[in-house]
């Protein structure tokens, strides 16, 4: 090729040059995009940290986390009620949602066949795609009256219907579809030999599922539950609509309360007037990021351990 001097060759060379230029330019762009996730995360943490400093320079970390007195107008910034509310809602939601999600996933992966299976899984897909504000809206006319008029009085509590239990119930509905699709995926990825091996020694279907399949799919199901956990923990709209928005330590599952995200939503009106409030609410954002990060990290370690322990 080097020796030929006609135009076709030089044209070929310039085309090659153009292609190599494209290659070079594109690789700069792609490299930038590759680092974007890291840069974004770092930027978010730094920005939130910087804006939280005014609060943290006035009060110590222990002071704001352990105080149950939240009153921005009086310069009282105690996050304990919101922290307790968040833990309460998350725990109740997971207790209600997880067993149902795992059982439903077992049904789809191990029991359903043919058209029923397609139908049920596409229903779950749809449920996962419905915006959470719609769940909140429907809950206002279905769940709130149910809890306020029947459930709470039946359990001896004089609640209005909005509160921690209502939020948890609705959040359980919001997160189950996510957990189900992930759990189904990991169950279906298991080789049939596992089922055959277990059934082949005379195990019942349920024994096979409980002892063999749930373990083998364990790391995947574990991730599914964690994903659900993360979504409940940071949920904003449904709690803001249904929790009642009172910053107090909750006394019963039916009492009103506040979660960390709803604190941000409900108190943002006061943001511009009281300078430290702004910093306090941004600090809530920082807390959410840090907890998510810690959680993801420990989950990763635990998942590795499970994978090692329950390999097949």
């Amino acid at each position: 090729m080097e020796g030929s001097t006609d135009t076709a060759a030089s044209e070929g060379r310039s085309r090659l040059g153009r292609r190599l230029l494209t290659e070079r330019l594109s690789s700069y762009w792609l490299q930038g995009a590759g680092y974007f996730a890291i840069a974004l995360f770092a930027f978010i943490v730094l920005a939130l940290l910087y804006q939280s400093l005014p609060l943290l320079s006035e009060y110590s970390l222990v002071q704001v986390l352990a105080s149950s007195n939240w009153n921005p107008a009086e310069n009282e910034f105690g996050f304990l009620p919101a922290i307790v509310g968040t833990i309460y809602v998350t725990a109740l939601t997971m207790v209600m949602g997880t067993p149902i999600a795992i059982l439903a996933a077992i049904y789809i992966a191990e029991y359903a066949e043919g058209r029923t299976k397609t139908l049920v899984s596409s229903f779950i897909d749809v449920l996962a795609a419905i915006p959470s504000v719609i769940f909140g809206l429907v809950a206002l006319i279905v769940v709130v009256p149910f809890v306020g008029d029947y459930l709470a009085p039946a359990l001896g509590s004089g609640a209005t219907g909005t509160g921690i239990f209502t939020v948890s119930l609705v959040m359980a509905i919001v997160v189950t579809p996510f957990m189900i699709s992930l759990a189904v995926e990991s169950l279906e990825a298991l080789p049939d030999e596992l089922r055959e091996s277990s059934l082949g020694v005379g195990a019942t279907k349920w024994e096979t599922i409980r002892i063999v399949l749930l373990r083998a799919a364990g790391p995947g199901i574990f991730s599914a539950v964690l994903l659900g956990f993360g979504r409940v923990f940071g949920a904003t709209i449904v709690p803001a609509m249904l929790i009642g928005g009172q910053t107090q330590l909750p006394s019963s599952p039916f009492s009103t309360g506040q979660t960390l995200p709803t604190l941000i939503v409900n108190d943002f009106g006061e943001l511009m007037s009281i300078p430290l409030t702004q910093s306090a609410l941004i600090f809530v954002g920082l807390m959410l990021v840090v907890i998510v990060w810690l959680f993801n990290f420990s989950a990763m370690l635990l998942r590795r351990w499970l994978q090692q322990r329950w390999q097949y």
Partner: protein
Amino acid sequence: MTDTALTTENLAVTYTGNREVEALKGVSLEFPANQLTAIIGPSGCGKSTLLKSLNRLHEIQPNVEITGDVLLRDRSVYNTDEPVPELRKRIGYVPQKPTPLPLSIYENVAYGLKIHGRCDSKDELDERVETYLRKVNLWDEVKDRLDAPGAELSTGQIQRLCLARSLAVEPEVLLCDEVTSALDPISAETVEETLADLKEEYTIIMVTHSMDQAKRLADEVVFLYLGDLIETNDTRSFFENPQHERTQQFVTGHTAVEYTESSEESGADSETVPAER
């Protein structure tokens, strides 16, 4: 001379998925007790289907239709009120791919014992686990790490672990689906030796694609071709004096052409071209 452990009566299996496939077209057979019967034939000829239909394992797949019957001793496998797991306890199955359950080595063997409530005490369980691990010549290799995950063993060891797991529930019949095909030659030899020891005590029915393995191990040979039973005989007569023309061709390795032709519709793989020599 010998009594019969399993009998199939006109057993036919049809897969009714997108395309209807008759995997087994009415097979009547007798499997003698305490002997090793090898089922041979080209890929996609219904060997595995026959094996799995003996303890109803094919039922975990959708779209399977079955007619005819299987008799374990004199009791029907298909027309019975007995729950299927009770049947599978008496007819065990070892899959082709070495598959440890996601449990420790010890629990893998104890699995069947526990679910059937065979052992009352921990000591008894320990003892049984040791017995069966010894039976498959695995005990000496694993006795120091019984709590390690089963999956950490080599594939050959895993396959023997699977055998121990199946034997632990004391089945009358053991079904083995090409149990050495996924192993390296040395592990395969160990597993073969184990099987040769075991056939004294158990009725073993084994699918194999290796003519040599059938010759070495089997007492009886069953030859299937495209879902039909072609010939069954004791190993010696089968190989030395095949009755059927198709058997002759297969045994001497002259079916390669027809085999390719027929395997194309069943989508069979080419790894198991019969009898290279």
